């Protein structure tokens, strides 16, 4: 296995993530897309670390990407839940208004 397949898979994942982010109006679904994108980038780091550099820094990067992704998911979902409590909806276009009157 060379580097190319991994990069292509990672690219496909990334693009799928973008499509999810674009196409869905549900905030949780958009968060799913973000997770896909983060996974794609983490995969890239490990692939480069294996094939291009002879050190393991790529793994560390991936590790921290995963850590950050977990933190992001926790906070993001908390915000979604809060948002739902206020607006009774998780449609992203509900998030246009800054006040809670609408």
């Amino acid at each position, binding site marked *: 296995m060379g580097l190319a397949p991994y990069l292509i898979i990672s690219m496909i994942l990334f693009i799928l993530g*973008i499509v999810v*982010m*674009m196409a869905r*109006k549900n905030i949780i679904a*958009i968060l799913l897309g973000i997770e896909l994108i983060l996974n794609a980038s983490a995969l890239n780091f490990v692939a480069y670390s294996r094939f291009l550099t002879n050190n393991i820094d790529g793994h560390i990067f991936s590790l921290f990407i995963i850590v950050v992704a977990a933190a992001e998911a926790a906070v993001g979902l908390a915000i979604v839940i809060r948002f739902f409590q206020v607006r009774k909806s998780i449609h*992203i*276009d509900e*998030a*246009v208004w800054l006040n809670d009157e609408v």
Partner: protein
Amino acid sequence: MEYTIFTILPIFLLPFLAFVLGSFIVKRSEKLAMAISTVSIFVSFLFSAKIFSDFIFSQFSKDYYIHKYFNWFDLSSQGLEFSVDLGIYIDNMAAVMLLMVTGVATLIHVFSIWYMADDKKYGKFFVYLSLFTSAMIGLVLSDNLLSLFIFWEIMGFCSYSLIGFYHEKEKAGEASLKAFMTTRVGDVIFLLGIVAIWGVIGTVNYVDIYSAIANGVFEGKMVLGISLATFAGFCIFAGTVGKSAQFPLQVWLPDAMMGPTPCSALIHAATMVAAGVYLSLRMYPLMELGGITPFIACVGGLTAFGAATIALVQTDLKAVLAYSTISQLGYMVLGVGVGAYNAAFMHLITHAIFKACLFLSAGSVIHSLHDHQTHDHVQEMPRMGGLKTKLPLTFLAMMACTLAISGVPLFSGFVSKDRILGDALYMAMTNKVYWVAYLLGALGAGLTAFYMFRMMFLTFFGAPRDEDVYKHCHKESLKWNRNVPLLLLSIFTLGIFFSGSPSGQGIVKFGGEKYEWFKVLMVKPIPKNFTTYSKEKLSTQDNRDKILWPKSSYESHDYGLNEEDEHRLHTAHIISAIASVVIASIGILIAFLMYIRQSFSSERIISRAAKFYKILVNKYYMDHFYIKIVIRRGLLKFNRLLANFDLGIYDRYAIDGWEHISRYCYRIADFFDRYAVDKIGVDGFGFVIKDVLNKGLRFLLAGKVQFYFIVLFLVLAFYMFRISTA
């Protein structure tokens, strides 16, 4: 002394750690927070005392400096250099400043232990003081404008919080807001100056700025039609104007007296407001290059005189001191303007000491006077009088400081102020513009003597005017945390500590050059000598001997003048010294006649010049001007104008207008459709107008997150495309 991480950083970090720790434990134990704060500042005082002795006693060279830097962050990639270094720059000026800041701060901490003892927010006060002190130390240690600005803003925040310390009082909240907002005006302009400098020479390090000046980097550069040096110098001076409460931004400082008195002493008298002057001194070569020194001198003179006149009619003890602070800061700025570099700095130091002492004494007085009806402390001078017997030690300290600030020979204030005025007079002989500055300064000196003695006489002499308050005032006894700081500070109001000739130019003179250490060591930096210059990485080791010392980075203290000019300078100093003494004596005499002898009553003068008095009481209507005219008429109207523009023009014409236009277009198209052309053209046209333009515009303005995603990703894709083609 070794200059390593372990010896330099503690000065700054100890108070900062005290702040961090204190803010956590202040809810548990107020006393512990106080103790941590005080001890930490004392330890950093010891460190800076070591630095001071290293610079002044052992080295005694005007070229001795320490410059250490470390890389803060580095975003450089190929072709684009962007790296920011922070560092520590200690020269003689910074060493003296450090000693002053930490010393005064220590004493004020000690005093606060007594002053704030029965306060509810005892610990919190110390926490703020710690943060403030660390920021001030950081500012002094900074080697560049960027970190200076950061600390500058932290101090601004501390000032804001401490002015509003009793935020349950409405006035305190307003005052803190006012202080914050007013200084912000100066700070924004200051930031503009920093950005301008950064944009041109790519760094905001003092030393790099000096060498850029010497290398002519600033030549020919224009900003907004004026030369860059002028622009940058002006902008940086605007920072000084805001922070040091110069005309026209002086309005916040009197209101800042709403804070606790020790904080007034530390922040609004001794250190933070002086930081503005310190900045001007650091950037002096730039201002000189920009040619704005006459302007600075005039601003300084105007402030010195104007504030002094307002101080004449104040009845609040702290207000008198506040205006006198503004006035004295005016002298420093005047000194900067006339090129009296070391005199201005000396006045900064002497003023810090005696004004801190004055404020603390005022605190001591105020704290011992109670109004037993409202249970408030009494600050009004008309209700005081005759306190000399009740508060002898405070009186002693305050008297010494009053003598110093009034410019009585042998005291520090005389030495420094006289030098500023002497240099101003000398400059006036060569350039007529400076006459304004000199005359205003000299007149202001007389007024200073008058209002300071008026304050003393009203407070301590004569018969008590409010028997009730007088009766309830306890006789003071020597307390380590009340009088000792006062007395220690008042000792340093003697001129002998700063100059070998404390009574004027060479009239009485001690020793040789070493006694004139201030004059010899605190001298202007000469930019061209900074071109061959090196700095060292901050680390755990001190490798100073590897540094190439520049031959002479600083100007010689004798100004390099020829014999004739030297003579003129000497003459100017003698004349101004005599003039100062005469003016000060007249001021003191008038005060004596007026308030002790009662030869002529002040009421009569007030009634004679009622209009003038009213102007003074209303502080030249500056506040009125700002609030009524600038804010209400100007800013609010401007805001309303913007809002109207937004609602009335942008919304109505740009957005609704689009709709109208499209609707009209649609109608026209409709007309055509019915009477002329077939459906396809019309539908197409309508689609373009209604769906594409109208919706598109609405889409741009509504906060659709996914639309932002699209833009984001497309831009990203574009950049990736660019990268891949590059």
